[in-house]
């Protein structure tokens, strides 16, 4: 019987959502292939969420070592290499997160296993994995095959799969193993976490968000949108490019690297709808998008759409508000 590995991601004592999502998909694949599912947890001390993982896997392989306080690509790579050499898992799922992106390619070179990144789905064809990916900022999908190998590495996009617990599974066993005795010294040393999201306004509590994206064009144009937000009693928020260009401080940013928001109404002006942004508005009641590009991905997730220059609509709304 083959084996599927899922490397779970956790931070500061909490299991990340992507871990549940990977386990959900891995369960479906394990069932389809009659493989066993092993969740791999690397940690410094016993973690309270280990039972949550056990409910979703046949086995939880726990490597507990004081050096594993926080993620470290050097250490993770060496430990996983040993486990992969020993177990020869057919598939190893990792998160397409900043940490997963730092680990998976290095592990691929070490193991010689092919890697496909940022997968939004995993299919089995003739006993081999094929993956679906989104390219050109989500405007095109791509089906990708991997070179023949005894094992494959895949990184999974956040929110691609539901975080649900698979039904009718009995909890798996928790197996503790030691870190390799010859674990090399890490070349990267963790120093601190820094909160970058705090600021004057809290966009997570607003009923109405008026959000601007790259389409706002230049810094000076933000003010006119802010006037509309003020007139309506809403808060101004934005997508990543606006923060990258220093047009607004980071605490306005909606998306995976910013805030997840849950307004009753989310007005998206000039936002194309990259998945990192869309992941931050899944809790919004109603999404209204205004964009010049009728093919903008935001229209696939919005409830209402307007194809127009955002300023035509902003000006007209301000006029109606008086």
């Amino acid at each position, binding site marked *: 019987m083959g084996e599927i590995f899922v490397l779970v991601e956790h931070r500061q004592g909490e299991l990340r959502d992507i871990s549940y999502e990977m386990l959900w998909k891995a369960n479906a694949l394990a069932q389809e292939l009659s493989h066993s599912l092993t969740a791999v947890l690397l940690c410094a001390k016993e973690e309270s969420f280990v039972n949550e993982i056990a409910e979703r896997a046949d086995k939880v392989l726990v490597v507990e070592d004081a050096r594993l306080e926080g993620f470290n690509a050097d250490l993770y790579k060496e430990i996983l290499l040993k486990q992969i050499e020993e177990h020869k898992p057919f598939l190893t799922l990792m998160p397409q997160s900043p940490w997963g*992106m730092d680990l998976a390619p290095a592990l691929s070179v070490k193991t010689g296993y092919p890697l496909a990144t940022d997968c939004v789905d995993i299919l089995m064809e003739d006993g081999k994995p094929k993956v679906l990916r989104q390219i050109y900022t989500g*405007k095109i999908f791509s089906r990708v095959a991997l070179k023949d190998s005894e094992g494959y590495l895949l990184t999974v996009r956040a929110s691609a799969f539901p975080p649900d617990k698979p039904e009718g599974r009995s909890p798996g066993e928790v197996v503790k193993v030691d870190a390799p005795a010859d674990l090399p010294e890490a070349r990267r040393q963790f120093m601190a*976490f820094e909160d*970058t999201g705090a600021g004057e306004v809290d966009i997570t509590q607003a009923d109405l968000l008026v959000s601007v994206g790259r389409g706002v064009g230049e810094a000076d144009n933000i003010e006119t949108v802010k006037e509309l937000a003020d007139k309506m*009693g809403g808060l101004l928020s934005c997508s990543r490019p606006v923060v990258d260009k220093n047009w607004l401080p980071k605490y306005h940013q909606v998306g995976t690297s910013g805030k997840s928001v849950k307004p009753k*109404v989310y007005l998206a002006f000039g936002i194309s709808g990259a998945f990192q942004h869309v992941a931050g508005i899944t809790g919004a009641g109603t999404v209204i998008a205004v964009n010049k590009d009728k*093919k903008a991905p935001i229209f696939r997730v919005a409830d*209402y759409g307007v194809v127009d220059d955002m300023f035509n609509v902003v000006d007209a*709304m301000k006029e109606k508000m008086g």
Partner: protein
Amino acid sequence: MNIVVCVKRVPMTQEVDLEIDASKKDVKKDMLAYVLNEWDNYAVEEAIQLKEKTDGTVVAVTIGDEDDEEVLRRCLAMGADRSIRVDPGDQPMDSFVKARILAEVTRGVEYDLVMTGVQSDDSNSGMVGILLAEQLGAPHAAVVTGIEPQDGEVTIKVELEGGMDEVSKLRFPAVLSIQTGINEPRYVSIMGIRKAAKKELNVVPLADLGLSEEDLTPMTTVEEYYFPPETEGAEMIEGDAGTVAETILRIIKEKGVSI
């Protein structure tokens, strides 16, 4: 500090209707405008700022045909000292092949840091930088939003999800994949690009790198490109701006927001 920065020329796809070509493995590119990949633009700026602070050289590297030299000239105009284009001919390439090519080129250059963008705007795989790091056996970090070099090591910030950065220290030589927003890339004028025309742009045929057949074998193959399946999508609001504005304001009120 000596820095190698790896860059890619990509099509601009915002506000563009992409078409898939007859092979179904690529998009039609003849009508598209091209730019320096956005992440790479930040990486080049960061390399040049570090060079300006610490002395040393910046070498920009790309893999591509003659048209791709346009992004190298831009890098030179921004302040890179010299540039290398590897001409792959008709060699099929995925991220693995590209990383092995870049590793071979980098081995021939003196470097303290290698920088790439986190990902490219077109194929979006986000793995070339770290594949390259492992090929070189160098320490690495992905999604970097801050770099402070000290003696023999560098303090970096890595952007995590949910408004959190991780601060860590890394030994030189290292490979970093650079996130957008790390700096404000400088403006490049046509005149600046003309002036930089004298700087070195070295073309290296792939065959000169002496890579093995195994090195040049892709690990991944695109089977098919297709458009996202139709979803119900948004209900479109039609009409002139005034009518649209009225409709939006009505919807906002209907959803229980008092404005």
